[in-house]
């Protein structure tokens, strides 16, 4: 119940920035248009590059724009608050509270993600649908799978951002790791180019990394490239990373707590 309250507070907090939301939707849409035309040219030159057709490719672009803010690919979200509280030392108070810090921030970030999905996710998708030929989910199973895979994508992304913010316990300033991780996330999630186009070992690596759970996997589920047992496997891949990374968050937090106790902050 507490976590629901935390999440809904985060949702409301973001919903107060209306002008920012409108500006963001506009920007997402502009980038969507640019990438759509670039991909159309690419698939015109090679009509089945990476096993996609042109409609798949354009759909991929707009899904990516919809998920970009939802999964906070560049960083940001609730974990920025954490980094700031570590920097100012306020986190010491949080650590002694009888609530689980990871769960608290996760709830808050899910609230934020819900807001971003409903605004900066849905609005550009509608614009993409109006301007381009976009594929709708392949089957009810694909639609359901997609709906399940988005929260998983957010959790994976959250856990990575939480770990990045936690570096502030040791570095004080987490902006370096934040930028580095953001760059890796953009590249290895499929945001800058679908991972299906990555050649050889690079493709294999990209698909195995947790970043792919943030964009590539949900998009492929929507496009119907995972069906049956494979669909379950794709969701399990996301859930596996989510679980492993959340455990890592717990572990890092325990280390940080011990450090604070030993060194007194």
């Amino acid at each position: 119940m507490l976590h629901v309250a935390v999440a809904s507070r985060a949702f409301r907090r973001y919903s107060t920035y209306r002008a920012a939301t409108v500006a963001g939707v506009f920007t997402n849409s502009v980038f969507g248009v640019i990438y759509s035309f670039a991909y159309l040219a690419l698939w015109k030159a090679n009509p089945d590059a990476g096993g996609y057709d042109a409609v798949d490719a354009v759909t991929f672009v707009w899904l990516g724009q919809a998920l970009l803010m939802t999964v906070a690919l560049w960083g940001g979200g609730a974990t920025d608050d954490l980094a700031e509280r570590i920097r100012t030392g306020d986190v010491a108070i949080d650590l002694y509270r009888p609530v689980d810090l990871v769960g608290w921030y996760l709830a808050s970030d899910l609230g934020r993600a819900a807001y971003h999905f409903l605004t900066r996710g849905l609005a550009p998708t509608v614009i993409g649908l109006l301007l381009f030929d976009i594929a709708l989910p392949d089957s009810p199973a694909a639609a359901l799978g997609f709906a399940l895979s988005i929260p998983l994508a957010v959790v994976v992304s959250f856990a990575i951002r939480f770990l990045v913010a936690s570096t502030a316990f040791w570095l004080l300033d987490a902006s370096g790791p934040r930028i580095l991780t953001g760059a890796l996330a953009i590249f290895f999630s499929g945001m800058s180019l679908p991972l299906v186009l990555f050649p050889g070992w690079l493709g294999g690596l990209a698909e195995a990394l947790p970043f792919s759970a943030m964009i590539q996997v949900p998009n492929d589920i929507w496009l119907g490239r995972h069906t049956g047992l494979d669909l379950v496997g794709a969701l399990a891949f996301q859930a596996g990373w989510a679980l492993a990374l959340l455990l890592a968050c717990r572990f890092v937090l325990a280390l940080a707590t011990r450090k604070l106790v030993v060194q007194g902050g």
Partner: protein
Amino acid sequence: MAETSTTSVTARLWHPVARYGDMVRLWVRAELSYPASFAMLVVGSMLINALDFAGIAIMFSSIDSLGGFGLREIALLYGATGVGIGIADTLIGSVERIGEFIRTGRLDQMLTKPVPLLVQVCSDRFTLRRLGRITQASVVMAWALPIVDWTPSRVLVALLMVVSSSALFFGLFVLFSCVQFWTSDASEFANAFTYGGNTLTQYPLTVFPRELAIALTVVLPIAFVNWYPCLYLLGRPDPFGFPEWLQFCSPLAAALVVAAALLVWRTGVRRYTSTGS
């Protein structure tokens, strides 16, 4: 009499430029006072940019040409727009954050100093970290330079292209950041034009529909960042059949955008001082 007025005019023009330099120097020194953090941010910036071009290069593992252009030709376009936005991004300092400055009262502080506001905002938080982007774009561009059949006039157009694209992006940053004088939390709006413009010009204009190409020539002249001068450098006829003289018009387009930006900036500042919000 005539002489004193000339000196005062030169002094009036020189003062802001010199102060820009002074403030920039201080920000750089402040930045370098955290060497570890600085090093990490430079590496991060280089990584972001390297991965950015890697994305385009990987495309070419599936295709031989995009919109009729090969990888090296696209590298030329990429380098030119990258250097341009990199220089502009370095020069504009905190222009993208004026909405925040309005909210925190920082703008008021700046308004009580005898240096033009734009100069103060553009020198604010000047960071060498952004040189990472300029360096990476220069390397990509250098890799593409051998494909140009160099003549003295092409050298001149290439140099003018770099200056113009920097000025054009500078103008776009200022112009669209001014939106924040009206709605202070809409800073992201500018990204569509600045970073969006950069992304768009990484691809040959032939990728886009003809109507968009026209709009990017006459409405928002982003095509002059690199497209027209690069056509000249590559000796290619205009794929849309647009006039050849457009290939020499980048400096003019840049001047127009900068002029428009300065005008809107003045209007924005005036609005701020007359509404107080």
